[in-house]
Each structure stands twice: as structure tokens, then as C-alpha cells.
């Protein structure tokens, strides 16, 4: 089923190397006496999971969703609202976060997928704005101000998520899981239809595939994975607010996917790490970091279409050639 060729490409080897380094990160943080590194990278891992989910529909399915951060908010609010009612069991919180994200994705996707192109971008944005304002209107859960979570999700004696390193490894494991799941999906018959409908939807329909159903399934799976990342984000921040699903956040997710390389297995990992690292480092250098970041983004779009993943492959190609 899997194609070994694609797994041993330079970009995937780079991804494997990065994952190994990420696994060692808590040790480095210990050596450098800087526990904050773990916090910083936990956030990157969670965004990488969200970007991985967006990559499934944007990179492989050609569906430019400008409202994907909505699921981060939905997943986060499920955890936050349950916690505020004293339900801390992760076994309940996380599956429910995924299920409710799936429900939203199913309804919204069913309507949005009737449109195409730029109208699809706009209608996904519209729904994300509606959900955003729903969050603002949740008066009993803090409204605009958001909701502080006083206890992280509890998994009994199995996992103590309040331990920052345990939580880091949980996020890392889920990221690897999400990357692998998306990889398998894309290589399957389902993924073939999804990719096929990106390049030519009419032809896929003509062959006899009900592409609408396939695309909707992809949309819902992406929403579920992203909802899980929202549950993680709520635990990481110990706080949820409508700001998690502001449209700029959705824009950031798209940037991550494109930056890493759309429709490549490891792209979202590269993209999320690069985006958040550049943001963090530039903002340490200058208060006016966006004046560098903005043009950088334009240059990537204009000249590095394939993203970081293709850069690795190009370097390899040059060395061989």
C-alpha cells in the first residue's frame, strides 16, 4: 500500500531527523536549564497537528478553507466548558471534542462544498466568523474574555498532563499519529479520489466517483484532527477564548501548510516549526518583526512555491547532479 520511494525522499528523511531531535528536546532543555523550551515547542507541535489536518483538505484535496482555526476553538471550548463543570476526565473530554468538531465539519462542509474556488474560501470564512461570534456570545463561559481552565484533562494515574514533559510527549505522539494517518489516507483509494478531484473533479465524477461524498469525508476527518489539536491547545494554555479562532489564526494555518509544502507528507511539520520559530526569533530581535515577516512571506509565495519540503529535495538533487 505505502510507497517506500516517497518515504525515503530527502524531505521525509529530514522530517524523520527533526522528529528524532524533537523527541530529544526535553533532554536538551534540561541540559540548558531552560524548561521554557518545552513549553515553546509544545505549542509548535500542537500547531503542527492542526496544520497536518488542514494539509489533508488543502494540500491533497485543493479545498482552501479559510476557517480552519474554528475547530481549534471548538475542540478547546469543549474541554474548557466541561472543565468548568467539573468534568476533567480526558477519556470524555477528548473524544467529545473530536465528535463535536466532526458534527460542525459535517454540517458546514455539506453546505460549503457546494461552492468552488474563491466562493469556497469566503463561505468557510463566513462560517468560521459565525462560530467565532458564537464564542463571543458564550456569556456564561467568559464571552470575549475567555475561560480559564483550572485543571488539565485527567487520565487517572496513566498520564499526568500537568507534568510539562509528559504533555510534550503526548503531543509529539499525537503529531506522529496524525502525520501517519494522513499519509495512509492519502495513499489509499480514498486519497486517490481526493487528489483526483483536486486536479479534475468532472473527470472523477465521469468515471463514476461521487466526489462530493469523498470530499466531505475528507473535510470531516480534517475537522476531527484539528478539533483534537484544539483540545490539546486548551490544555496547553489552560485557557480558551474566541481569539483562538480569529480569522488571522486560520490565515496562519494556511501559511504554515504552504510554507512547509502543500500536499507533502512532512510539509505541515516543516511549516509549523518554521513559521513559529521565525515568528519567535524575529520578535526577539525587533519589535517591528512583521515588517520583515510580511515580505518574507511574499518571497516564499513568489519564489519557493513548493515550500520547505521541496527545498530539501532540491538540495539533494543538486548534490547528486
Amino acid at each position, binding site marked *: 500500500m505505502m510507497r517506500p520511494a516517497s518515504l525515503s525522499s530527502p524531505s521525509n528523511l529530514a522530517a524523520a531527523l527533526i522528529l528524532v531531535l524533537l523527541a530529544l528536546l526535553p533532554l536538551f532543555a534540561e541540559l540548558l536549564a531552560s524548561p521554557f523550551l518545552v513549553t515553546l515547542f509544545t505549542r509548535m507541535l500542537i500547531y503542527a497537528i492542526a496544520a497536518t489536518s488542514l494539509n489533508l483538505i488543502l494540500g491533497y484535496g485543493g479545498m*482552501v478553507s*479559510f476557517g480552519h482555526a474554528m475547530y481549534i476553538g471548538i475542540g478547546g471550548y469543549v474541554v474548557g466548558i466541561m472543565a468548568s463543570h467539573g468534568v476533567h476526565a480526558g477519556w470524555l473530554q477528548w473524544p467529545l471534542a473530536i465528535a463535536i468538531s466532526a458534527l460542525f465539519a459535517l454540517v458546514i462542509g455539506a453546505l460549503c462544498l457546494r461552492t468552488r*474556488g474563491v466562493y469556497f474560501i469566503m463561505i468557510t470564512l463566513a462560517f468560521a*466568523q*459565525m462560530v467565532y461570534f458564537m464564542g*463571543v*456570545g458564550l456569556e456564561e463561559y467568559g464571552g470575549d474574555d475567555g475561560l480559564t481552565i483550572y485543571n488539565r484533562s485527567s487520565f487517572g494515574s496513566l498520564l499526568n498532563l500537568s507534568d510539562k514533559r509528559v504533555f510534550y510527549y503526548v503531543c509529539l505522539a499525537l503529531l506522529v499519529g496524525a502525520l501517519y494517518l494522513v499519509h495512509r489516507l492519502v495513499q489509499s483509494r480514498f486519497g486517490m479520489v481526493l487528489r483526483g478531484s483536486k486536479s479534475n473533479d468532472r473527470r472523477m465524477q465521469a468515471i463514476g466517483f461521487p466526489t462530493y461524498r469523498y470530499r466531505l469525508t475528507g473535510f470531516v476527518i480534517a475537522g476531527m484532527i484539528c478539533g483534537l489539536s484544539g483540545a490539546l491547545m486548551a490544555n496547553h494554555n489552560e485557557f480558551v477564548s474566541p481569539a483562538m479562532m480569529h480569522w488571522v489564526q486560520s*490565515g496562519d494555518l494556511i501559511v504554515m501548510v*504552504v510554507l512547509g509544502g502543500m500536499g507533502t507528507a512532512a510539509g505541515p511539520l516543516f511549516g509549523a516549526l518554521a513559521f513559529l520559530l521565525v515568528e519567535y526569533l524575529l520578535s526577539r530581535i525587533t519589535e517591528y518583526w512583521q*515588517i520583515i515577516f510580511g515580505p518574507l512571506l511574499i518571497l516564499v509565495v513568489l519564489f519557493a512555491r513548493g515550500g520547505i519540503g521541496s527545498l530539501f529535495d532540491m538540495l539533494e538533487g543538486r548534490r547528486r547532479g
Partner: protein
Amino acid sequence: MTILILEQSLNGLQLGLLLFLLAAGLTLVFGIMDLVNLAHGSMYMIGAFLAATFAGWTDSFILGALLALPATLLVGIVTEMICLRTLYPRDHLDQVLATFGLILFFNEAVRLIWGPAGMSLPLPQFLSTSVEILPDVRYPTYRLSIIGVGLAVAVFLYVLVQRTRLGMLIRAGASNREMIGALGIDIKLLYTLVFGLGAALAALAGLMAAPILTAQIGMGENILILSFVVIVIGGIGSIRGAFVAALIVGMIDTVGRAFLPELLRLFLDRAAAATAAPAISSMLIYMLMAAILVLRPQGLFPAPGK
């Protein structure tokens, strides 16, 4: 009550016309060059800041406004020639990303030049009062003049698009891009002109909003999203659609804010109604847009030939 309804309708009309100025430029650029330009809101912001600066230098609101228009037009043209021109053949995703980068750049550039505090644009005495529009009904003079200018621009655009050679090319471009090339027109020049016009209209909206809202960094982003809603509802490329949709959106936003709390009070207690109403009225616009896209995926007035 009738007085309040009249006053709120004027408020809605004023917001709608401001949105129309932005949406007109956006829909032209979108319809003709097929460019999704998120940085359109930046022109709105730059127009406001330039007008405040020029008004400070010349000590006159009118002169400041008149100088800011060509200055922003110039900024628009330079942006088009340096950056956006290369984006026309790209797909929408690339355009969204690159112009998203432009927003970040312009916001920080404005912060570097003018500082983080923003600028106020004081109105001349004759505009900063209110007039009696009906016996015992007063309305701010300045908001009335925004309505006047907005309507005048709408008429101007109508004449420009329907009655001039440039307008003919614009109409042709909106429905069939290849055709203008076949007519032997310098497309590059036409594109630059249209983009400059859009930037100037955005600047006009920005400088008219500045005395009410003050010029602020990031002021373009919120109104940009609303403008996109307007052009999607109206149908991309259609000025008439933008006009109608802008008025609808302006009315819904204002009427929602004005009367929803009273309506909700029928079901909720006063405090809950007062806090839930702003959120629900903000959602109304997006519900409308989603409904229209589901029922009429091309908007209310799709440009012919698309």
C-alpha cells in the same frame, strides 16, 4: 420610536456607503484582474493616516483630504507595479498569502512612520455639529456629508462604467478577460489604472472614517472582511451588486445592533440580552452571506459571462 428608526436607517445607510467605497475597488480588481487583494484594507488605513498628516500640515481638513487621495493612488500604483502585478497569473491561494504578507508589512510600516498611537483627524467647526433634519430630529452633519459623498461616488462610478470608454473596457474585462487583449489595449496600463482607482476609493473611505474612528493601525482588517462579504453577496465584479449588498450589510449591522437587544429582551433578562445582542448581530451578516452562497453561489448580481 419612528424617529429612532429613521435615525438608525441613516446610520445604516452611512455605514453601507462607506462599505461600498471599499467594496467597489475590491470588486473591480477582483472582477477584472481576478486578484484576491487582502491588502485593500491597507489602502484604507494609509488614506486615513495620510489625510491626518496632510490636514495637520495644511491646517485644513478639506485640503488634507484632497492631498491624501492622489498620494494613496500613488501608493496603490507603486504597490501594483512592484508586487501585485506578478500575482495576476497565480492562483487565489498564492494571492491570499502574498497580500496577507502585504498587510503585515503595511501595518508595521505605518507603526514605524507614525508610531503606535494612531492619529486623530479633527473636523472643521461646520462639520462637527448636528443639523435638524426633521422638526426635533437632529443628525450629525458629518455623517450626512458621508452619505452625500458616498452617493456622489456611486453616481460617478455608474457614469464612468456605463458611459465612458474606460468603463466599456472595465465591463468587457469583468466578463471576458481575453477579449480586451484581443482589442489591442495595453492591459498592463488598464490594470494599473483600475488598481489605482480602487486604492483611491479605499483611501476616500478611510479618510472619511478617520474623524469618527481616528486613524489606527489595523483599522483596515475588520472592514476588509466586511467588504469581502459585500462583494461576495453582490456578485464578484459587479459594481451594482456591490452597491446593493453594501447597503444591505450596512443596514443589517446597524439595525441588529440597534434593535436586537430589545427583541432579545422578550426572551432573556436585560443584562443577558444586552451582552448577547452584539454577538448575534455580528453573526447576522455572515449568516446572510452563507445563505446567499448556498442558494445563489454566484451572488445576487453575477457579472455576465462568468
